[in-house]
């Protein structure tokens, strides 16, 4: 207990301590020399690849995966190309980046999952350096080739390669991923993003500092450290607005590794630098802490410290949390320290316990003391220290009446879990998800229940993961697995059967996948997998069933690229919803396909309509006519005589218009029949208009209206009269009266009044403003409504007429 501060090292105002986490279980013959090593953050697994560079083609290097405590998880000979870099994704998958730019992905247990490439161009020039990084978007990969071209992929699960612009001078000395790529070339620093390469200057770093040879960003991407060839280390914020410190390390060789060591909320970030035989902690102050190193080590940046892995053991280097400082600092008078002391005395049955307690209580700091002890327990690794702190807290709590036990309870709970998983056999994972990925299912489920994590986030996720693994068990039959999964998973919220089915398919068990998909309630969820499994028909009907057109469309596009045309169309034919959707798309994007689609269906009606539409886009008359002719043929095939005839007539009309345009320059092409006749009449081409009237069997009424209006508009009154007498008007003569009146020609209008049928005569008289005549006609016809109409127009001054009308109205009413 007394030695708790023995491994504390002061740096500025803070203390740093190096705690041993494990003696490694592994037995590495050659240590970590000549190895590619990658360890996942949050106490994640460690991957090792031996002799990556100089290897004879005959000997295959071994790729090994260990838990953080060094328990072997997987090991297999590396058969692929030379590897430049290893790295772990956020979901603990191993990335192996090869010289040729291809990236192979393995799971935690060393089974191959998939691969992708960082681009064609990389293949030739080879990857020089690579970095795996984590961001809110997921896990990213950045590489630089021998020709100094950088390529970036921010999320490997949604791969979009960004080839960054060329860098000035085509050389670089150090690089880091931070707001794009941060890269140095001698003393200059650049930010490289998708579009440009911008020079930036770290504040307070003069050119005399020398060339930047190493750089590092913190775990949170908030801070940046630069190391120059004169041995200076500059630290500051990563957006290069402020400088924090500059330390002279008095080392001129660049460090092998440089990692930020910072506790969240701590004001004193520092950087851990590693050379061959030396580990140095440098921070804001000018002092440094130096540790000699015996073995080659690897530094792993963590959220709150740095893990140091060597072949023999693993240590955690971290800033001593403030609360621990207060309690354990020598001669500390902090309430927590006093409480711890009080409890110690109490265990010894010494009355001093009471003195200490009184002292705390006098300052009314007992609550604070308990809080400190609880918090410090959470930060300690050694379970004995944890225990003594918690006991002290619980002891102190007895003297408090209204202290909320919540923090105490949850800390106990969490510590139990943490201790359980830190146990050597499990090996340090910190969160329950990481537990799950390591396939300690029962433990994980217990942990979830124990920590009272909502089912949705906790147990369900464990179950999902369990099921995903279950389906990979090759020794069980499809039936047995499907049943087992169904029994265990049931309707747990948040467990997606399609996800499990996808796993099954990945391991080559399509039948099982389909069985599992049947459990999936939401049809939309089934679609992507069905597509992947090439069950396209089923996928299409599921998509249609889901009612989500976007999904239908996704399937349709997929089918289009996967199937030959004939099959594609046949498939659509069975799905009217999908078909109409695709038609819509074709109308806007691919007119030709539309035609094929109708052809396939023998849909002559639509085909004909298609040709009609197409004809309007055609400028040349000949092509337009030929398209229309095709339309006519199709209409005939569709037994749509009406449309066929109408189209034929259109062709005839077009030819006629063309002829007249050529002869007279009439500008008729494209007009409707009516408009053509109008234009002809307006031009005085009566003969031609009559010809159309006969040829196209224009109804008499229409033609008469047309001619009447046109003659009146041109004020050809004599022509009009002649026309009116040419035969009995099919539109009657009231029309003549009205049209003349519209042209304000009363005398002409009056000429036709007498010809109007008796039924309309009143109206005709009224139209020309002849009240007397209207009255006569109305009285003669003894019609109520007509009399009323005349009366309404009759001025009050004309008493005589009024009387006559009223009398007649009365008489008509009697009847």
């Amino acid at each position, binding site marked *: 207990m007394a030695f708790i501060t023995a491994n504390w090292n002061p740096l500025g105002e803070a203390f740093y301590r190096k705690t041993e986490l494990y003696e490694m279980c592994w037995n590495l013959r050659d240590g970590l020399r000549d190895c590619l090593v990658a360890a996942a953050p949050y106490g994640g697994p460690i991957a090792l690849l031996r002799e990556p560079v100089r290897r004879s083609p005959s000997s295959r290097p071994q790729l090994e995966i260990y838990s953080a405590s060094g328990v072997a998880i997987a090991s297999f000979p590396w058969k692929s190309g030379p590897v430049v870099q290893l790295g772990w994704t956020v979901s603990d998958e191993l990335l192996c980046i090869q010289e040729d730019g291809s990236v192979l992905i393995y799971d935690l247990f060393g089974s191959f999952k998939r691969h992708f490439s960082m681009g064609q161009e990389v293949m030739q020039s080879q990857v020089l350096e690579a970095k795996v990084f984590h961001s809110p978007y997921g896990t990213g990969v950045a590489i630089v080739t021998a020709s100094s071209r950088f390529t970036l992929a921010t999320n490997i699960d949604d791969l979009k390669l960004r080839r960054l612009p060329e860098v000035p001078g085509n050389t670089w000395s150090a690089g880091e991923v931070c707001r794009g790529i941060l890269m140095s070339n001698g003393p200059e620093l650049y930010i490289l993003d998708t579009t440009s390469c911008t020079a930036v200057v770290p504040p307070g770093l003069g050119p005399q500092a020398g060339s930047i040879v190493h750089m590092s960003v913190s775990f949170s991407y908030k801070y940046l450290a630069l190391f120059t060839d004169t041995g200076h280390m500059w630290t500051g914020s990563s957006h290069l607005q402020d400088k924090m410190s500059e330390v002279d390390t008095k080392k001129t060789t660049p460090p092998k590794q440089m990692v930020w060591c910072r506790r969240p909320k701590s004001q004193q970030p520092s950087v851990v630098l590693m050379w061959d035989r030396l580990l140095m902690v440098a921070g804001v102050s000018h002092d440094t802490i130096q540790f000699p190193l015996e073995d080659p080590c690897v530094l792993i940046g963590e959220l709150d410290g740095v893990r140091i892995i060597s072949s023999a053991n693993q240590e955690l280097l971290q800033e001593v949390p403030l609360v621990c400082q207060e309690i354990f600092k020598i001669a500390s008078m902090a309430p927590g320290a006093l409480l711890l002391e009080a409890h110690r005395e109490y265990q010894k049955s010494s009355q001093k316990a009471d003195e200490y307690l009184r002292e705390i209580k006098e300052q009314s700091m007992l609550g604070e003391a308990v809080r400190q002890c609880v918090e410090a327990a959470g930060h300690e690794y050694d379970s004995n220290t944890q225990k003594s702190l918690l006991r002290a807290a619980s002891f102190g709590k007895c003297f408090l009446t209204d202290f909320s036990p919540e923090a105490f309870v949850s800390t106990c709970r969490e510590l139990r879990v943490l201790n359980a998983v830190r146990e050597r056999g499990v090996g340090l994972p910190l969160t329950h998800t990481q537990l799950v990925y390591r396939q300690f299912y029962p433990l994980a489920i217990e942990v979830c229940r124990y920590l009272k994590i909502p089912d949705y986030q906790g147990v369900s996720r464990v179950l999902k993961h369990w099921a995903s693994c279950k389906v990979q068990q090759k020794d069980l039959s499809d039936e047995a697995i499907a049943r087992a999964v169904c029994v265990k998973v049931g309707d747990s919220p948040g467990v997606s059967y399609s996800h499990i089915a996808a796993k099954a398919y990945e391991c080559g068990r399509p039948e099982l996948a389909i069985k599992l998909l049947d459990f999936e309630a939401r049809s939309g969820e089934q679609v992507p997998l069905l597509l992947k499994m090439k069950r396209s028909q089923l996928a299409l009907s599921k998509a249609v069933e889901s*009612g989500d*057109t976007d999904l239908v*469309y996704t399937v349709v*596009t997929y089918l289009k690229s996967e199937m030959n045309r004939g099959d594609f169309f046949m498939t659509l034919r069975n799905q009217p919803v999908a078909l109409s959707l695709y038609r819509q798309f074709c109308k806007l994007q691919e007119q030709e396909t539309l035609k094929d689609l109708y052809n396939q269906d023998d849909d002559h009606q639509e085909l004909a*309509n298609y040709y009609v539409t197409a004809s*309007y*886009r055609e400028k040349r008359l000949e092509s337009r006519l030929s398209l229309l002719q095709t339309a006519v043929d199709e209409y005939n095939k569709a037994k749509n005589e009406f449309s066929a005839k109408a189209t034929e007539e259109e062709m005839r009309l077009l030819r006629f218009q063309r002829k007249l345009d050529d002869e007279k320059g009439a500008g008729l092409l494209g007009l*409707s*029949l009516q408009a053509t006749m109008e234009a002809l009449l307006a031009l005085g081409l009566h003969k031609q208009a009559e010809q159309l009237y006969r040829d196209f069997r224009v109804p008499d009424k*229409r033609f008469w209206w047309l001619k009447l209006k046109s003659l009146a508009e041109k004020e050809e009154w004599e022509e009009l009269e002649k026309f009116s007498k040419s035969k009995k008007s099919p539109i009657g003569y009231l029309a003549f009266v009205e049209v003349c009146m519209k042209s304000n020609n009363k005398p002409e209008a009056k000429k036709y009044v007498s010809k109007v049928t008796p039924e309309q005569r009143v109206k005709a008289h009224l139209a020309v403003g002849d009240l007397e005549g209207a009255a006569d006609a109305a009285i003669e016809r003894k019609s109520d409504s007509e009399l009323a109409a005349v009366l309404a127009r009759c001025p009050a001054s004309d008493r005589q007429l009024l009387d006559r009308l009223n009398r007649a109205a009365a008489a008509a009413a009697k009847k």
Partner: protein
Amino acid sequence: MAHSARTDCPELPDFFLLKRLARDQLIYLLEQLPGKKDLFIEADLMSPLDRIANVSTLKQHEVDKLYKVEYKPIVSTSDQLCFLIRPRIQTVKWICDVANADKATGRFRRYKIIFTPQKFYACDAVLEEQGIIGDVTTDEWSFYLLPLDDDIISLELPEFFRDNFLAGDQRWVRTAGSALHLLHSLYGPFSKVYGIGRCSKMAYESWREQVEEGEQKARQAEIGKVFLIDRDVDFVTPLCSQVVYEGLVDDIFKIKCACVEFGPDVTSSDKSIKVMLNSQDRVFNEIRNEHFSNVFGFLSQKARNLQTSYDKRRGMDIKQMKTFVSEELKGLKQEHRLLSLHIGACESIMKKKTKQDFQELLKTEHSLLEGFEIRESISFIEEHINRQVSMIESLRLLCLLSITENGLLPKDYRSLKAQYLQSYGVDHLLTFANLRQLGLLVEQQPGETLTVMESKVGKLVNDRTGGKLSDAFSSLAKKSNFRALSRKLNLVPKSDEEYDLRVPRDMAYIFSGAYVPLSCKLIEQVLERDGWTGLEEVTRLLNGHEFAVTGSSGADSKAKNDAQRIILVMFLGGCTFSEISALRFLGRERGCKFIVVTTAITNSSRLIEALLDNLV
């Protein structure tokens, strides 16, 4: 007003929240592209956007210049372009052209596309095909609902109608479902949902799915009941000429986003004036639901009252004058301005609509609705076509004839069609094909005995999963059966009685007492019966797809709650102002309030124009 209105109508919920949500989200999206940027806005989003965030708000969030999307090369000099568009392939293609043109000239810019209300997969497909998917970022602005007035909310998606009902493209169904979901989460839970029509049913299901996926919060409902209705359940109503003031203004001046532009003939000056038409306009609010024949009288009475108020000034002492100026004058002035505008509009309408032609047009419509003097109506339509009165109007009458008569006799069908083509060009063959597909203008099939079989086939076709039959069959199912429906629901009041339009006795007043709108009648009946029981024959005639679902939220205990008398009616495919007026009338009669949610405000010409296919 003269209505015997019940005074216990509940208060409507406040829909301002919808605007605020939309605005906040838009601002958030704009800030995702930091720095100055030019904003390109799709033409038909301009007005809705203006209701949500005005230019100064946009400028505050570093929008530099605003442009309308015009499908032309752009002139912007900004390095960042943001596009606010509907998820239309044509627009996305244009953006691709813009980006590719920049690429060709070696110019670099950032592009961001904000799709509203959502993005479709097809848009991504186009971006990918054109090779710019890596160059643009896309986002969705889930701006589903635009409150146009206290009781009107629009999705502002006019293309919903054509896409869904003509092209059979159901992409918007989910949008409707999401809109309903939004309303439900803000103003629900709904205790009862009724609906009719295939699209309504799908929208309902889409909404249910979204409810099940999301969290459920128990809260006090502000909207109790919901009624979903497809436009194709009732085509007759939107095809009739509107004679209620608001509808008439829409027919003549075209109301856009609750805003109308009155031209010089109305304002009696040389300028046009844009006027917001909503309940804030006190004059308008009093006449919007009135039959046009009453409006002028009302306005002149109002003008006289106004004069009296002005006249009060005479004989006031200084103190009185002071209070008059500070309290009343501004209101009076405002009222004066509005009054003179509406009087101007009225005069302009009178000029156009009291003419002989219009009266005859109405007479024809009424005969069609009643089913009398059909031959005369046909000759009227024929003459209408021959004299080329109006391309749209003629089609409208043809459709009305076809629906009310359950299709045209083959002889009439051919001759009218031929004449129409002669008048307006043969390219309308395609328009006629569309109208036929929608069942708006069809030929009577010889042998009407098929009906039973057809409705069976129709059921099969409309079944969601069993869509194995070709589309051609589904048009068979679209028999209008108007005459039978009209008899069953008593849609056409007996014409021998005098109908006093000033004191309407039923919803028929919106069509001069000649016809109760089918859509509104259905709503009335279903609400009265609390379901479709007793309407089996009617739903059979309407080809089914009716549903009535009770919500899970223990509606019985709260049945007396005010919210139960707030009814949300969602029209899928658009509704007319006349229908809204009719529902307002119904609400006053029954002591409840209706909120109309529609994919867009429609009227006869918008309906027909959406179906034109003369692409010349």
